[in-house]
């Protein structure tokens, strides 16, 4: 069991290593100037040299991402319940949601500055807007996928709406909800960075943008790598929580996991 985990992790590391090695060789063979595209060795060196700068700027982005994700989850859940249980809500809001989703938030970002001011708030709003659509869709789908016969049966036993929702529908929808959380957390990272590109004096998006205009391409990629690492860590946190919640559910409810 342990051996399988170890070989799997080593394999995943090997994929990254192969990618970086290929990159390192490619820029050397093609004589690409480091200020255009630096080799990974220079990028890692820059990351080590500026590690406290990168770390200090990771926190603001982390706050913006988790804040945006939390808002998206709460808002998405509420709207999803409305969609799942009211045909009227579903039909009225669906087209609007889709239109709002495909709208490029980057275009609205200057307006957000005017409405929400500077600092963390506009970043959280943009992150939430980008992340909430998959949560709404999947949660609504999950809630709506419970077999109607089962609900009718519970009704006939005298169960209240609340009992049915919390004991049947919600646990049933959890795999769908967590699937959407995986997507939403990565979108929240994108959203927070978009907010930082528009206006910020801190965060990894700021680091990337500032290094770009200063022609410090190695630091810029350092910021990009740090951002990727942040996204991966947050994704893994979601997966971990998902495992914990769903396995608890198996223990208590006996409902099969859908993985």
């Amino acid at each position, binding site marked *: 069991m342990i051996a399988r985990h170890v070989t799997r992790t080593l394999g995943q590391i090997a994929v990254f290593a192969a990618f970086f090695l290929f990159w390192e060789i490619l820029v050397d063979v093609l004589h690409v100037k480091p*200020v255009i595209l630096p080799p990974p060795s220079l990028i890692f060196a820059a990351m080590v040299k500026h590690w406290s700068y990168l770390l200090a700027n990771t926190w603001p982005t982390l706050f913006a991402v988790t804040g945006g994700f939390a808002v998206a989850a709460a808002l998405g859940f509420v709207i999803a319940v409305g969609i799942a249980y009211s045909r009227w809500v579903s039909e009225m809001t669906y087209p609007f949601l889709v239109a709002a989703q495909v709208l490029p938030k980057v275009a609205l970002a200057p307006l957000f500055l005017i409405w929400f001011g500077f600092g963390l708030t506009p970043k959280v709003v943009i992150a939430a807007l980008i992340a909430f659509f998959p949560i709404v869709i999947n949660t609504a789908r999950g809630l709506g996928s419970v077999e109607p016969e089962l609900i009718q049966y519970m009704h006939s036993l005298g169960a209240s709406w609340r009992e049915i929702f919390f004991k049947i529908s919600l646990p049933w929808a959890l795999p769908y909800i967590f699937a959407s959380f995986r997507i939403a957390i990565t979108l929240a990272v994108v959203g927070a960075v978009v907010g930082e590109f528009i*206006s910020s004096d801190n965060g990894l998006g700021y680091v990337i943008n500032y290094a770009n205009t200063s022609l410090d391409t190695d630091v810029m990629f350092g910021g990009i790598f740090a951002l990727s690492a942040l996204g991966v860590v947050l994704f893994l946190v979601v997966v971990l929580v998902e495992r914990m919640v769903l396995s608890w559910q198996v223990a208590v409810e006996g409902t099969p996991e859908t993985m």
Partner: protein
Amino acid sequence: MNMRRLFIAALGLVLMSGPALALDKVTLRLDWVFGSEHAPIFLARDKGFFKDEGIDVEILAGEGSTVTVKLVGNGTADFGYAAADQALMAYAKGLPVVATAVILQKNPVAVIFPSASGIKTLTDLYGKTLGVPTLSVSEKQWRYVEKLNKLDEAKIHQVSLGTGIAQMIEAQKVDAAVAFFFNDGLKVVSDGTPMGWILLSDVGLPIYSTSLVTNEDMIKKNPDLVRRFTRAFLKGWTYALGHQQETLDTFLKDNPTVDPKYSALKFPEVLKLTQTPDTEKNGIGYSSQERWEAMQKALLDMAIIDKGVNVADVFSNQFLK
């Protein structure tokens, strides 16, 4: 006629028509989207100045001087129109970008503010909200100016701005901002609010601005092309100075979607930046070793570059005539 004579006649025709068709096709990447600050360039193309020098130029819009110097330094674009300090930064980082003509002699970054605010000097900013473009090199230039003028940073409420500077001023979310006076500043004027500005170059920042740049390899391999291009380019600016309305009209015709009111406000201000005592004596596009050295020293002081280069490698006045 026998076949041999026919053949020789045909050969002669081909040889004679050869040079007339062989225009040098080159790309010119600008610093930003097309605006009236580029009007003299469009004029030079439309009036045939480039064709007269045997050049067929393709004018491409840009996304900032930073990208343009990267493209020129990488050889992806033949010529560029980009800020001189970015060219120097690029050279210091290993991109062989050379300026063959410095068009805008003064950096247009300024502290802009509504005229009604009563701001006259930098210390009038105390107690006010100032938008600073933290995502660009302009922010470092502002910090340098603060240092040179011994400003007390704590007395000014500074917030970070990226895009939408004009909107922020119009929405009165900031009292003033550090921005390109002829872009964001005049945009606000065009929308109806009179603006004032303090140019950072007037309070101690010795930075040359947008220049014609090319790659060092291009100069080595084809100096004649660089000379012809620079000559045609400068002819456009010289003509524009003497025929402002015609130049503006040509630009608006080429770019019908651009706001004509804003363009008309911008154009004369941009032309003013091309004239200094240096250029009056030596011609438009001239730059001096002293000012390039001063600019490099400022960049070193601002920690924008950490190692100096031989500035004589980064600019040249030899293509001005």
